[in-house]
């Protein structure tokens, strides 16, 4: 059932967070009682470079409306260089998604450290708002997975 009102539309958002920075940042946001929308479903990954392009496409296929990848700031990667590789890969992937006609605002990469609880909560709030404005992901969803 398509929902046009941004008020009633609850987007499904998948956030891939790296274990060492962003996931800890989310933890801190929680213990600091900083609010972020419950629409964001966090998946913990060892490093932002663990995010295979297929994860992102798969999430969209299974009904996600937006996907965000959070990792350590460049230079701060727990594995030294993982996020540099992730940055190149995601740059190319996002450009490709735009090229085949998928709104590029549905995907985002944000660098969030373990101490940046405020940034985490702000990022998630703004991303959810952005997806709400875009509306439901009808172009990409796999119809079998929609209720």
């Amino acid at each position, binding site marked *: 059932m398509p929902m046009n009102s941004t008020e009633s539309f609850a987007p499904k958002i998948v956030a891939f967070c790296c274990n060492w920075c962003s996931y800890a940042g989310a933890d801190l946001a929680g213990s600091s009682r900083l609010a972020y929308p419950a629409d964001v479903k966090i998946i913990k990954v060892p490093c932002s470079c663990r995010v295979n392009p297929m994860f992102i496409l798969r999430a969209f296929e299974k009904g996600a409306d937006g996907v965000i990848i959070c990792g350590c700031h460049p230079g701060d990667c727990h594995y030294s260089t993982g996020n540099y590789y992730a940055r*190149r890969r995601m740059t190319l992937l996002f450009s490709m998604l735009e090229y085949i006609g998928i709104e590029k605002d549905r995907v985002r990469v944000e660098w969030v450290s373990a101490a940046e609880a405020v940034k985490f909560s702000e990022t998630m709030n703004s991303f959810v708002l952005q997806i709400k404005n875009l509306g439901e992901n009808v172009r990409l969803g796999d119809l079998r997975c929609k209720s």
Partner: protein
Amino acid sequence: MQELKNRIKQLMEENVAQRALGWKKGEFGYDAQAAFFESTDELDDFVYNGFCGANLSKYMIEACKKEGRTIICLKPCDTYSFNQLLKEHRIQREKAYIIGVGCKGTLDISKIKANGIEGIVDIEGADMFSSENLLKIKTVYGDHELAYSDALLERCNCCKGKEHMIFDEIIGESADTVSADRFEQIEKIEQLTSIEKFEFFRNELSKCIRCNACRNACPACNCRKCVFDSDKFDSAQKANSDSFEEKMFHIIRAFHVAGRCTDCGECSRVCPQNIPLHLFNRKFIKDINMLYGDFSAGSNCEENCPLTSYSFDDAEPGKI
């Protein structure tokens, strides 16, 4: 062609190599296919003409598992793929004796048929080593003529050049066939609106029958076990595929060869549905060139691949 055939025969007789990897004539004269020639007798079927589009580099992986050396015939653009495979340690240099063959562009039979020419019996003038620019096509309905340059594959219109990047010897002359900018079509698509782009690709990709020809022909697609062969992956078959699955297959396939794709154009050439698959690969090449500096996969064996290296001041995702 005779010169090339004789040279291969001579090399095999002199025991320089035990077998040859070349093209074998098919049923119609326009469907030459890749083949191993294990003895000099088998060389009778050897052909080299405009319809020998197949890039033989990937067959070298198979040849490396065999005893002895293999003579491999490579067109200038095929040598890029060969280099790339060498760089990835998929083949061994000492197992190959490379004959760089001259090329004046490979032909596209569907372009010939698109001129309304049907019932083709024989095609004359497809020889690579003659300088004549005329194809004489014999059909059951009469004879036709077509300029050689009008029947070229799309990839040959944006040829990478006539230099062989790696070879042991060169036979024949190569010609420049460039008549278009290879990124022109990419730029055109980039100008479209989001919906138009989506419709364009949906239209093209919904033709996909998941035959895996693009994957099997691609010299860069050489993993022993492919992600798409997993039974956990729905798009392993067309039957249970939905509209997005086929997009996913082609995006991921292009992504897996990004930075390693030499733009040899085999994917588009072998596609039975004529899907312009090179549009994906070229988009990645264009982006890589723009963001990480000009890079041509396979032009040498030393340079780092753009996706296995990085710099501190790379562009941020989504900001370009």
